[in-house]
């Protein structure tokens, strides 16, 4: 099912569009630099249990990156403003890749409003051993190999976004990503300095063959948080919820206390 981002949130000249569905405790999904579409399935599934909000990050939604959006923390502040405006507390967050980084930036600023964090191969952490993959020099084929282990997913990735409108969204997303993560590359200085402020129970899910953020980053990130767990998945790249959906769902459902 295609996602529809019909609602808008505005704060001065800043803002974003989002999809919202379901009843119950609030759950925020923060997508990665690859865009929200790969979260359509999880959005539907989780909306049976939660009030699910999925923002379409500005600059990844087909529009040009707005001038105000210069750093990952700009999105973190904006989404905190929105949660506050909506009067939401005890928020569950599922953040993937860039979205996991945004979640981390939100959590170091306002840890008290979160109930659980699920960080799926999140960016933002400076590994003491190794570097994030140099994705900006990868060809499309190399990108498929670095992000996915399964041939089917690689083929799906290569076949996607073949028409011009999708290609334009893709290039704009890439440009927004570069603006936010180019330097320091995929690293959030504030997140690294203040990471111990995150006392929210946190679940990390990481593919052992992630070519963008090595699983070693996950071990370090997890070791810095007082209440966290890391699940490492075999035969899995950067997108565990697509590559190992069974293990992924079982893990987050238990952690988020989804009643079956």
């Amino acid at each position, binding site marked *: 099912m295609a996602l529809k981002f019909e609602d808008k949130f505005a704060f001065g000249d800043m803002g974003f569009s989002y999809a919202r569905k379901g009843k119950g405790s609030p759950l925020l999904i923060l997508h990665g630099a690859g865009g929200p579409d790969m979260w359509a399935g999880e959005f539907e599934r989780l909306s049976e249990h939660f009030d699910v909000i999925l923002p379409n990050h500005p600059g990844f939604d087909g529009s040009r990156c707005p001038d105000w959006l210069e750093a990952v923390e700009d999105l973190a502040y904006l989404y905190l403003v929105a949660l506050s405006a909506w009067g939401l507390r005890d928020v569950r967050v599922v953040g993937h890749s860039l979205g996991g980084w945004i979640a981390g930036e939100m959590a170091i600023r306002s840890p008290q409003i979160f109930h659980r964090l699920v960080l799926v191969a999140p960016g933002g952490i400076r590994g003491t051993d190794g570097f994030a993959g140099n994705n900006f020099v*990868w060809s499309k084929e190399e990108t498929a190999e670095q992000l996915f282990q399964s041939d089917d997913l690689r083929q799906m990735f290569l076949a996607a976004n073949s028409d*011009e409108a999708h290609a*334009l969204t893709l290039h704009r997303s890439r440009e927004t990503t*570069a603006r936010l993560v*180019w330097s320091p590359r995929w690293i959030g200085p504030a997140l690294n300095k203040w990471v111990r402020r995150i006392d929210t129970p946190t679940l990390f899910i990481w593919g052992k063959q992630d070519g963008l953020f090595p699983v070693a980053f996950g071990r370090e990130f997890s070791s810095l948080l007082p209440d966290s767990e890391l699940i490492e998945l075999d035969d899995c790249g950067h997108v565990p919820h697509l590559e190992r959906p069974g293990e992924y769902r079982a893990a987050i459902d238990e952690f988020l206390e989804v009643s079956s």
Partner: protein
Amino acid sequence: MKFHVFHFLPYADIDLKFREKGQKTLWMFHKHRFDPETCADFYDTYLDELSYADELGYDGVCVNEHHQTPHSLMPAPNVLAGALSQRIKRGRISILGRALPLVPNPLSIAEEWAMLDNLTRGRLNVGMVRGIGIEYHSSNVNPVESNRRFYEAHDLIKLSWTEDDMISFQGKYYECRHFSLFPRPYQDPHPPIWIPSGGNPQMIEWAAHPDRRYTYLQFFNSPYQQIKANLLAYKKAAREVHGYEAQPEQLGWAVPTFVARTDKEAIDLARPHLETLFNDFMAMTPELLFPPGYVPAEAMVQIMKPRPGAGRRTIESIMELGMVHIGSPETVRRQARMARDEIGLGHLLPMMHFGMMPTDMTRENLRLYADEVMAPLREEAALDVVPA
């Protein structure tokens, strides 16, 4: 028309089988051999060639900036210009150009250029460029900021040259609160500024502005019709947007050039070197050449469209597009006249060495061109046989 010899100073001892070793390009990912003796010899040889060009009476010599590639041994062109300042005694020295956004503080460039202007007693031309896409990978400067950093760096350099008191500048990327330039430029108010650029309309209109009137330079890697269109766009912007007629000295073209006694001899001799330049030295992946934001996303959609494999470019296909001046003296005179008359070109920058051309061949090329192309064209201009 003025004649400036352009030189890339390549490390002309590359392994042409780099593709068989799994490399797509000689830029950045090179694992090719580097021999310091060979490199030092290349610098000597090339500086001698440029000195020889000065002795032959060319109007000037030109260097430029590229990083981490055998294509050009000039990651710091100002260093080369410093060396040239002690050898080139008559002609001008043009740095085409220096990539402004890649440095943390453009005032260091303003200082170096002021030094060089004095070292040459005012024979310096300076080119301002953004740098090519791959240089954003190597410098780690955010490519999304490239355009805005360029204009801001230009403003800051210009301010330091034209304001003789302490300057303050608070830009988005650069800031200075306690700076006044010393030494100051030799030329008043500053060295002529050139803008080498690929045809970006915003840059053309900006360069042509009456407060600037910068020399707009086209490089060799576009078909003649495209080069002509870009240079005519500059004249049009001057006329229609800014209300004045651009002069020939505001237009330049750097073009690979080779002269021999006959067309056939010229093509035979130039072939391996020109084909190596276009196919090997210039080989690049789109991800390296176009990092995100370096050009607008709309342009990226077109650039990344799958195209039928073009295969290796031949000298014939390159000549057919008018991208080079190669042939007998008569042929090359005709090609130069065409650019002069159709475009109103005031600066021709023959690139007399390319690929792995040996120095004897380069020197003969320089000599023959000076005698058989430059001299007759200068005579025509002196006699005013054709309107400039």
